[in-house]
């Protein structure tokens, strides 16, 4: 089926469902998502109370972190019972400073991640509004304040500054998953703006005189609300000392560069002036040079000799260090004729292309919005002639920018073949504009399968096969992956929870293995996800990032609505040119809208396979592979079938039973208390004078009890209604992915 007709089919399903419901359908079954924590960090060695908000927060049992040095336990109320969605989080004395991932575990499993910072600074949390000069919150030096931006307002802070001092004010936002684009202003004692930053959330301020200063914070477009949180740090920094920056989560593009990368080459530094050819910095290859795109329109020119036949790999890391740069490398051969020089272009090296075409972010969905490429440089330099060469490195974004923070690392090395991998959960079909399904934690339902794209950036000419796999999977969970074939840049990974998989929540690893120079090389697959569930992509650009690890869970609360699996768990064999019929077993849990599942196939070489339409609730189907029309390469393949569907989903029906029991109990208790009160009230009149006082006291107490029992009854009724409403069937569009179908394609018989 062509992608175009796939869209049409899905639209058909959606329309069918819409006819039955006046309300807009939501997309994707309830998914646990951690949206905010307050505060967003903790000081090393301290314990803080953290309140969380999110989606599908029922029965939150744990708050987990990507480092064991951060631990959380439920906060207990005065009654000794845990308070809902509140935790006491402790950062161990040896907790690593930086950004870690937080997530909760709830009824439906592990949630999406939210950044949580461990810092050396004293932490405060803003508790009262500070939207005027008069209500400004006083900031202590070397502290960080956790706050939520007030919409259509300016948040005010104040501090005491001294002449000669250097004050660094930083507002961490995007790097800790916030939606806020911060504007940072330092103003004088009357609140008049002195200096402003709107692009990097950083102000390096030298107070012109001793006195009071204000810091104003607001959103670039004055947006606010819980998703626009920020951490405002005020630090005294010695003159000339480097500016300590707040730690940031990693961009997707950065997976292909390791901060600690060591190529076994002596490190060197760029030496200005080297802008002009005449002032080229002389180097020898290989080299590992640290430098900066500074000042504006900086060009760094390096000169080296090379011999015919040499092959070098040139890599520049800058954008992948989280900087807003676009490095460009030009290599030219230099021929000298007396005083004159002739320069001949040898190589132009620019962006690292994305291994999978990212979505254009148009209104229609046309692929995953993850750009795993980079504006950095990674390319080959082949020397065709002995001679003198010059390499010029410039920042294509640096023409007018004077920012010494824009640094780079330039490595020129002989081939060191290697690879880097990233993966993200996919949602094959999305309704226009709604991208919330891309914020998808690996919270599995028994009988369910999740699909992932895996992409590779191959380094220094490595072209071999890469085997994908997972380690430390919970009981009952299996992973099947397509091998990334030689020369290919993409693969797929399927994670399946069996129908019998028990409840669990842990951390697994996805890995890729390849043979390089006769040795097995294993590399982690870094998981990426969207920071937020975006329901209107025309109004908000979905922002992805790398996660710190691979949390995975299986719930016991409910099963996947549909399971599609090959009847037998085996490798199916078929010869090229022949047909193979694979019987499928389908399991249906719950009720559905529509009439059929229009299955489609996924897997390299099989996307054009003719796929069956399956009637709703059918227990079996047949998938016929015709290898006369499909021409996959011989060897083992993994195929998945998938389809959109609309479930009449009942949210947590078990809660209705519990609520009903609780309501009955509350009703009964109220009735008993009422009867007792009535009895005591009657006794008051009948009681002899000497006992009347005592009976009266008892009757009053009973009346009080009755009041609270009635309140409890009303509360139970409210809960019952909420649970019943939630459990009423609602149309939710989602996708079902089959369990992996493994096929071995054999060469055709020789005729």
């Amino acid at each position, binding site marked *: 089926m062509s992608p175009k007709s796939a869209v049409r089919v899905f639209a058909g399903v959606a329309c069918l469902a819409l006819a039955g419901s006046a309300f807009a359908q939501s997309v994707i079954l309830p998914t646990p998502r951690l949206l905010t924590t307050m505060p967003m960090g903790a000081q090393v060695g301290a314990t803080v109370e953290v309140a969380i908000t999110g989606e599908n927060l029922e029965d939150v049992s744990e708050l987990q972190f990507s480092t064991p040095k951060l631990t959380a336990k439920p906060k207990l109320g005065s009654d000794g019972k845990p308070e809902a969605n509140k935790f006491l989080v402790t950062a161990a004395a040896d907790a690593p400073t930086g950004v870690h991932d937080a997530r909760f575990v709830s009824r439906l499993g592990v949630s999406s991640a939210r950044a949580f910072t461990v810092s050396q600074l004293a932490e405060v949390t803003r508790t009262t509004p500070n939207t005027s000069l008069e209500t400004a919150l006083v900031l202590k030096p070397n502290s960080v304040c956790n706050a939520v931006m007030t919409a259509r307002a300016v948040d005010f802070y104040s501090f005491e500054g001294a002449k000669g001092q250097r004050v660094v004010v930083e507002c961490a936002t995007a790097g800790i998953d916030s939606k806020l684009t911060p504007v940072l202003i330092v103003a004088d004692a009357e609140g008049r*703006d002195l200096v402003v930053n709107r692009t990097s959330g950083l102000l390096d301020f030298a107070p012109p005189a001793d006195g009071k200063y204000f810091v104003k914070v607001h959103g670039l477009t*004055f947006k606010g609300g819980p998703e626009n949180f920020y951490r405002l740090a005020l630090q005294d920094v010695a003159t000339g000392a480097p500016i300590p920056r707040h730690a940031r989560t990693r961009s997707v593009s950065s997976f292909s560069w390791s901060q600690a990368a060591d190529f076994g080459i002596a490190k060197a530094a760029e030496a200005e002036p080297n802008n002009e050819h005449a002032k080229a910095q002389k180097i020898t290859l290989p080299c590992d040079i640290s430098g900066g795109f500074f000042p504006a329109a900086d060009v760094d020119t390096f000169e080296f000799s090379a011999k015919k036949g040499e092959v070098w790999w040139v890599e520049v890391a800058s954008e992948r260090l989280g900087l807003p740069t676009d490095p460009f490398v030009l290599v030219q051969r230099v021929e000298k004729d007396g005083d004159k020089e002739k320069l001949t272009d040898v190589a132009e090296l620019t962006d690292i292309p994305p291994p999978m075409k990212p979505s254009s972010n*148009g209104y229609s969905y046309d692929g995953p919005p993850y750009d795993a490429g980079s504006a950095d440089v990674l390319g080959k330099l082949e020397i065709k002639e002995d001679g003198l060469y010059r390499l010029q490195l410039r920042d294509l974004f*640096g023409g007018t920018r004077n920012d010494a923070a824009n640094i780079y690392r330039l490595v020129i090395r002989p081939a060191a073949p290697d690879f880097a991998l990233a993966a993200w959960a996919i949602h094959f079909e999305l309704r226009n504009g709604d991208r919330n399904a891309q914020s998808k934690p690996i919270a599995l339902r028994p009988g369910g399968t999740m699909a992932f794209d895996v992409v590779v950036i191959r380094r220094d000419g490595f072209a071999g096969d890469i085997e994908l796999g997972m380690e430390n999977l919970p009981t009952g969970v299996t992973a099947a992956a397509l091998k990334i074939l030689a020369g290919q840049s993409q693969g797929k990974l399927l994670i399946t929870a069996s129908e019998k998989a028990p409840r669990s929540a842990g951390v697994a690893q996805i890995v890729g293995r390849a043979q390089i120079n006769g040795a097995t090389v294993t590399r982690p697959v870094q998981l990426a996800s969207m920071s937020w569930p975006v329901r209107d992509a025309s109004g908000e650009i979905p922002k992805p990032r790398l996660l710190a690890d691979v949390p995975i869970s299986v719930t016991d609360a409910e099963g996947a609505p549909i399971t599609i699996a090959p009847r037998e768990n085996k490798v199916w064999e078929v010869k090229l040119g022949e047909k193979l019929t694979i019987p499928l077993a389908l399991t249906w849990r719950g009720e559905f809208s529509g009439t059929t599942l229009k299955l489609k196939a996924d897997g390299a070489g099989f996307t054009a396979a003719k796929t069956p339409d399956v009637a709703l609730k059918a227990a079996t189907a047949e998938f016929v592979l015709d290898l006369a029309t499909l021409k996959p390469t011989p060897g083992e393949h993994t195929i998945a079938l998938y389809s959109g569907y609309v479930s009449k989903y009942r949210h947590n029906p078990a809660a209705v039973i519990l609520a009903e029991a609780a309501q009955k109990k509350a009703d009964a208790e109220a009735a008993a208390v009422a009867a007792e009160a009535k009895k005591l009230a009657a006794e008051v009149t009948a009681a002899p004078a000497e006992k009347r006082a005592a009976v009266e006291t008892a009757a009053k107490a009973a009346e009080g009890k009755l009041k609270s029992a009635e309140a409890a009854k009303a509360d139970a009724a409210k809960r019952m209604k909420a649970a019943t409403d939630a459990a009423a069937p609602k149309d939710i569009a989602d996708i079902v992915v089959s369990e992996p179908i493994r096929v071995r394609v054999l060469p055709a018989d020789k005729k």
Partner: protein
Amino acid sequence: MRTVSFVNDVVPVLTKAGCNAGACHAKAGQGQNGFQLSLLGFEPQEDYEHLVKEGRGRRVFAASPEQSLLLMKASGRVPHGGGMRLDPASEGYRLLRAWLHQGTPFDQATAPKLVSLDVQPPRKTLKTKSEQQLKVTARYADGRTRDVTALALYEANDRAMAEASESGRVKIADIPGNVAVMVRYQGLAAVCNVSVPLGAPVKHLPPSKGFIDQLVFANLKLIGIPPSPVCDDATFIRRVSLDIAGRLPTVKEAETFLASKDPAKRDQLVDTLLNSPDYADFFANKWTALLKNKRDAASDITANFAFHSWVRDSLLANKPYDQLVRQLLAATGTIEGNPPVAWYKRVKQPTEQLEDVAQLFLGVRMQCAQCHHHPFERWSQHDYYSMSAFFSQIGRKPTATAGEDVIFHKRGMAQTENKKTKLPVKPAGLGDPTLDIPPDEDPRLRLADWMGNKSNPFFAKSLVNRYWKHFFKRGLIEPEDDIRDTNPPSNPELLDALAKHFVESGFDLKAVVRVIAQSSTYQLSATPNQHNGVDRQNFSHFYPRRLQAEVLLDSIDQFTGARTDFADLPLGTRAIALPDNSYNRGSAFLKVFGRPEGASVCECERASSASLAQSLHLMNAADVKAKLATSGGRAERLAKADKPEPAKIRELYLAAFAREPQSHEQTVAEEYLARPREDAVGKPLPPEQSRRIAYEDLLWALINTKEFLYNH
């Protein structure tokens, strides 16, 4: 008879007769009724083809010249949409007929080339209501000269001051000052500068505080216009606060200033205002409209807020003007990371980029030269595409936001195709030699280098002229973005001195404002004396201006104590701080008072005239009424305040006009406040309510005075 030249005789006749005007046969694309001529005869070769060879040759008929369509139409003997253009008795008609008679020769290769144009007199002092005949001589490459007075075209740059007839006779009206008459012939232009003195005695001059005063007063003396005296303190604080900070002075500011005996207080006030964020807000408002910060889609909000803020923050930090322009012109990266990139979102075509840059930063209008030689400038298509070539290596990569690109320098040789010659043209600054820019260099940086060069003849002049107009209502060159040889400044020495001062200050924008606002010239009274009322361009007195839309709205808010609620922005955000044009849609006030939409680089997009709709709006509109009665506003506060009425009336006058009320004003106001009021059915109103209504009325009355609505 001598041989008639097509190039030097026929074409000038056609031009003089208006045949090849833009509205007639030189209309872009198709000409008129199938007959096309090049604009103003810039392309004789093409004109010859059209005239002689097209239309089956019926336009020219050598055997019987009188029967040629060319003459029949031109003389109106057959129906002609353009009417009669040539009298059969005229010299022009005779020339055309002779050319036809000679067999319609074409002589571009042999015709002597026109090299210069000379007008006599080039400079003259003339009395009001006098006349002067000009004499125009064409000089050719072969050394010959020719009197082309009859064939040249004439136009005065200020028609209220002078009119020039078709035959080159200049009639001076009764307005004193400097006027230029432009003379055009065959792609060349010359100018006659006429000085028209008033001739009144200039006995008293205000103190001269610097080069501005010296040059303005020297000119006034020369042409005999006595200046008005320097204005009083109240007028000054109101005027300068409105012009620098875009707002009225507060009551406290006015009181303090009026009470101060410090002789340097005016200079200090200028500095205080320049150092306030209000200055940055007000001038950012001016610049962002010119830089087309326009909201077309809801998703533009981030780019527009970022861009507006970048301009505002740059002004707050007093970034040197050459740096500001450099960062804009050569912007790279993303809008969020580098907001001036947003300009490239709005202005996408290289032609539009060069045209906007030339008009806004150089005061040169290049638009004409895209398709033909500029009609009254020296700029050719080659000059146009040479400027365009600076923008030829802009790389774009799409971003996640629809319509927004990442901008970068695309490696390659900067050049662009001349649409006329189809030949590649390399970059060159206007009037400068061609640059060989290596493929690795961003040519836009070289353009910024050229603009910011101290000897650039346009860059500094254009800015100081624009700012001069901001403070004086009229530029030294008008329109302020039309600098050319044929449109000379009214005071050339002053323009040069301002530009020199600006360059030497390191392109310090605050320094321009400072030197202007601290001059006596800026501080002259708006009240004319017995002589200088006729003066419109010599700055002998201050020319009053209506407050612009945003400033007026803010002033009414400040005066009444109301706050206008603007979408997305914090309550209390002032109209001068609005980031883009989107707020005009929701505000009848801003629309009726002419806030621009950011569609053009021309300041003329802002309506500065007064209209009936404006008067009615101020008198009757619901939003203005609501402001008068705003809860917690000035009317309510004064009505309730436990203060004597004279003190309250004094506050009103200080708030509105930055001055004390005069005794008759005080009396009228007190009487009005004391008057008993009745409700609709004639029942007396309780005193508190009556007083509040009375204060609202007073506020309303003060807002509706010229003294409030004008900066004077």
